[in-house]
């Protein structure tokens, strides 16, 4: 295998003491070369005589006689495309050798912009060929075209490292030269770079015509010949030129001993570009050992640790195993390095280790930091937000939005809520993003994020909703996840199918109607044949509500309610007609029914917990009259309510209400009774009398009084009436109406008052009974009160005995006792009495 005809098996040609510097290859320093070791060049490279200093790689294979070597490396390094082509095809005019040092000197001070311009002029189509891993034949052309390789290599790395840079800028090699080297990033980029750059050099050096040989003849060839040849990538001389700064202290350190003209400037340049962090600090111990070994071999030169740190610190193990040329670079650089930079950077070993650790840490952090630039982040943010943003947050993000309002976070209370309309903003508000490590940065980032969000929201709103699309040639529909349905793959029902189902359901209902009619017809026939049940004659006009019907009605109510609630968030004027209609208050209001299914649907709804839970929300949207209508309906239908019908202990053998109904009663008193109590505050005196009258007329008052809910409702109405009466603004007519109403009620209750005490209330903790008695006593005259006391005398003493039996030393019992007596006294106080556990006394005023 040979590279440009170089025979690796031959004895090494480069003097070990000579260094090799890319920077100088185009400097015309070849003129000052010591050619002593170049004797075998002819043999090595095909020996076409004196090739001059401008060896043309395109002609090395001898297929065609090499054209006059007129172009120097320096020239080639900065060659424009045209130059390159003409050289390649041997059409370039011969260039006088003498001009080279001069031109090199000029090129030395080329500005970065100029270099850039030259680089960009190179035919980009050549780029693919310049990959270092390309096979040999292509490498032959590679030399001048090498420059573009930088395009391929650098952008990804710098793109990551300098997030602030716009992409187009990153593509420009000249840009890199302006970058201060960041210690942390160098190790990352080096492995990719150096292999392509350094190992190619030896070939040049050996091909260099006499007198042009730069001082840096690679000595690594003698050191490690086996590794060298197979891995020689193309020669990146131009690369060095383009990027004097990139890894300045590593490869480009000049050989001061032999450098002649331009090296001092180089040195200065490099000195400027040396990273702020002393490079020696990032040397890993192992690397230093290695250096030390090498140094001891080559003890003639001082070891300059500062010169190759970047390579050595982290990637050393890798290099040893995978990247031999890197390894070589170390030795190479190490030996090339000079005391010039050495002294100021000397640190104690402890400091170095410490610094190395720190540096390693920094590197680890830096490695991925800024891997996305702000544009990338913005893009990702926008993309994510576009999926979750919605125009109707209260509908689609209902839970979170309302939850935030109902349960404000303590630290968010004071904050303005004007951004509520966007779920995306709410999302970010609440997501607890930790932006940036430091406060200021976080603020900036937050601001940017918020601006970004604003834009994203508008963009997302404008964008048409695309949920699915069919691509030509695709086997199926490609569904696009949205924030609403991130992964929906199945469309279970098309709308047509759903409609069909609904129609089916309707016909199904029709059938049941028919069945019902059939039954009714039968009933009718029965009625005709049997005059005793004539009452069923009108059953045709009465609709029966099954459980499903009631549930449907209830769902409809809730849906309407929620719709109205949504509307009310947007405007104060809402149309409650639909809601009122859906309540079906005015359907079949008669409490006298033969079948529980014929009861008014709203009353039936009230047997379900979920209806009770919405009562207070419902009442918010109903007018006073509407609520009064509902109250009237309920008063007349009390007996049809489950909580009354099944809520009396008297209907059960063990005198206990089953837990199923107890639970419903509990819910009822927490929801409906409360809502009713609030509404009753708005009722007028005569309205309350009206309600009471309806209640007494349509129900068995004595039975109702044995239920907790019935008693609570009575208490509510009575106490409200008492309060209004206490205000003293009642007309005489109303008063007389009131007293007759009260008499009627009392008559219904008389002789059954003691029954209101549930027999199994062992603890007597239920205060509602005493509340009712107190209210009743308050509304009655003295004779009423006497009757009441007479009837509940046993209960009074029973409570007193219970209180007495409790040991007041126990704190729990003490409270229980107090509770018992308080309940009792609530009633007794009305009659000017007060009781303790021993006796009943007259209330001392």
């Amino acid at each position, binding site marked *: 295998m040979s590279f440009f005809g170089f025979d690796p098996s031959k004895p090494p040609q480069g003097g070990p003491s000579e260094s090799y510097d890319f920077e100088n290859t185009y400097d015309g320093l070849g003129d000052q070369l010591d050619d002593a070791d170049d004797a075998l060049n002819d043999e090595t490279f095909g020996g076409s005589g004196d090739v001059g200093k401008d060896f043309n790689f395109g002609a090395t294979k001898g297929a065609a006689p090499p054209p006059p070597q007129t172009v120097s490396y320096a020239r080639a390094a900065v060659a424009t495309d045209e130059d390159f082509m003409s050289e390649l095809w041997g059409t370039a005019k011969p260039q006088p050798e003498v001009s080279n040092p001069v031109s090199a000197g000029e090129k030395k001070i080329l500005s970065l912009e100029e270099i850039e311009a030259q680089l960009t002029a190179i035919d980009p189509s050549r780029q693919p060929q310049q990959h270092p891993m390309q096979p040999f034949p292509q490498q032959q052309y590679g030399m001048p075209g090498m420059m573009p390789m930088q395009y391929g290599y650098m952008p990804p790395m710098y793109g990551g490292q300098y997030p602030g840079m716009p992409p187009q800028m990153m593509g420009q090699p000249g840009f890199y030269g302006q970058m201060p080297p960041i210690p942390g990033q160098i190790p990352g980029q080096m492995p990719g770079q150096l292999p392509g750059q350094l190992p190619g050099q030896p070939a040049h050096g050996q091909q260099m015509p006499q007198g042009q040989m730069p001082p840096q003849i690679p000595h690594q060839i003698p050191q490690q010949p086996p590794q060298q040849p197979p891995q020689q990538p193309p020669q990146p001389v131009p690369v060095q030129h383009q990027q004097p700064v990139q890894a300045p202290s590593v490869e480009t350190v000049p050989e001061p001993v032999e450098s002649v003209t331009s090296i001092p400037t180089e040195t200065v340049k490099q000195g400027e570009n040396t990273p702020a962090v002393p490079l020696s600090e990032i040397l890993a111990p192992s690397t230093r050992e290695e250096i030390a070994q090498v140094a001891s071999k080559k003890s003639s030169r001082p070891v300059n640790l500062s010169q190759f740190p970047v390579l050595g610190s982290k990637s050393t193990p890798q290099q040893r195993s995978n990247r031999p040329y890197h390894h070589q670079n170390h030795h190479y650089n190490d030996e090339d390095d000079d005391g010039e930079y050495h002294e100021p950077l000397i640190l104690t070993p402890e400091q170095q280790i410490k610094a190395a650790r720190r540096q390693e840490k920094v590197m680890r952090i830096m490695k991925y930091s800024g891997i996305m630039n702000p544009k990338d982040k913005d893009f990702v943010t926008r993309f994510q937000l576009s999926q979750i943003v919605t125009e109707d947050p209260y509908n689609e*993000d*209902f839970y979170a939005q309302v*939850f935030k309002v109902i349960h404000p976070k303590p630290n968010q209370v004071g904050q303005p809520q004007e951004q509520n309309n966007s779920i995306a903003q709410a999302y970010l508000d609440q*997501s*607890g993003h930790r932006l940036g490590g430091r406060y200021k940065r976080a603020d900036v980032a937050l601001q940017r994020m918020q601006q970004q969000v604003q834009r994203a929201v508008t963009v997302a709103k404008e964008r048409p909703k695309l949920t699915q699309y069919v691509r030509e040639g695709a086997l199926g529909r490609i569904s696009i996840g949205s924030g609403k349905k991130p992964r929906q793959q199945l469309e279970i029902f098309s709308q047509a199918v759903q409609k069909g189902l609904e129609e089916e359901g309707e016909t199904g209902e029709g059938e049941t109607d028919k069945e019902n009619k059939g039954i009714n017809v039968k009933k009718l026939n029965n009625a005709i044949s049997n005059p005793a049940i004539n009452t069923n004659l009108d059953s045709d006009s009465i609709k029966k509500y099954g459980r499903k019907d009631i549930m449907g009605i209830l769902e409809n109510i809730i*849906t309407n309610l929620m719709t109205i609630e949504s509307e009310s968030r947007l405007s104060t004027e809402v149309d409650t007609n639909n809601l009122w209609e859906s309540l079906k208050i005015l359907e079949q209001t008669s409490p006298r029914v033969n079948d529980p299914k014929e009861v008014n649907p709203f009353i039936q709804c009230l047997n379900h917990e979920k209806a009770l839970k919405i009562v207070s929300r419902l009442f918010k949207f109903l007018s006073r009259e509407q609520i009064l209508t509902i109250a009237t309906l309920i008063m007349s239908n009390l007996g049809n309510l489950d909580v009354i019908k099944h809520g009396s202990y008297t209907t059960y053998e063990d005198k206990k209400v089953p837990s199923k109904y107890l639970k419903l009663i509990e819910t009822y008193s927490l929801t409906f009774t409360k809502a009713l109590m609030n509404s009753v505050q708005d009722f007028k005196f005569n309205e309350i009398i009206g309600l009471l009258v309806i209640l007494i007329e349509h129900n068995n008052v004595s039975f109702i009084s044995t239920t907790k809910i019935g008693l609570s409702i009575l208490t509510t109405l009575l106490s409200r009436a008492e309060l209004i009466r206490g205000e003293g603004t009642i007309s005489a007519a109303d008063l007389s109406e009131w007293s007759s109403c009260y008499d009627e009620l009392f008559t219904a209750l008389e002789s059954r008052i003691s029954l209101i005490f549930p027999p199994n209330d062992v603890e007597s903790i239920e205060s509602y009974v005493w509340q009712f008695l107190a209210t009743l006593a308050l509304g009655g005259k003295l004779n009423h009160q006497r009757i009441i006391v007479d009837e509940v005398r046993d209960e009074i003493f029973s409570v007193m005995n219970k209180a007495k039996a409790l040991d007041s030393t126990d704190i729990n019992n003490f409270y229980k006792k107090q509770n018992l007596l308080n309940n009792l006294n609530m009633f007794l106080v009305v009659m000017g009495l007060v009781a303790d556990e021993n006796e009943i006394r007259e209330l001392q005023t």
Partner: protein
Amino acid sequence: MLFFSFFKTLVDQEVVVELKNDIEIKGVLKSVDQYLNLKLDNISCTNETKYPHLTSVKNLFIRGSTVRYVRINPNAVDCTLLQDASRREAMQAAK
């Protein structure tokens, strides 16, 4: 959207995430997205002796599809509101 909406309200609450591979991770919920991917902070493994893999991890990102259960504080849930929200979701779907 309902679950996304729901989990959003749990941000900054402590939750226990049981993964499909049986690991249980307790941590403060930091973020959630529409795939119910979760970001947890200050995590600890509730069955650490069995799965010590995460002993030195402080925060992590969990792909939503790997979650089996998320255990939450019952007090952090407004059940009535959740019922309404699910009803609303059903209404939306029916449209």
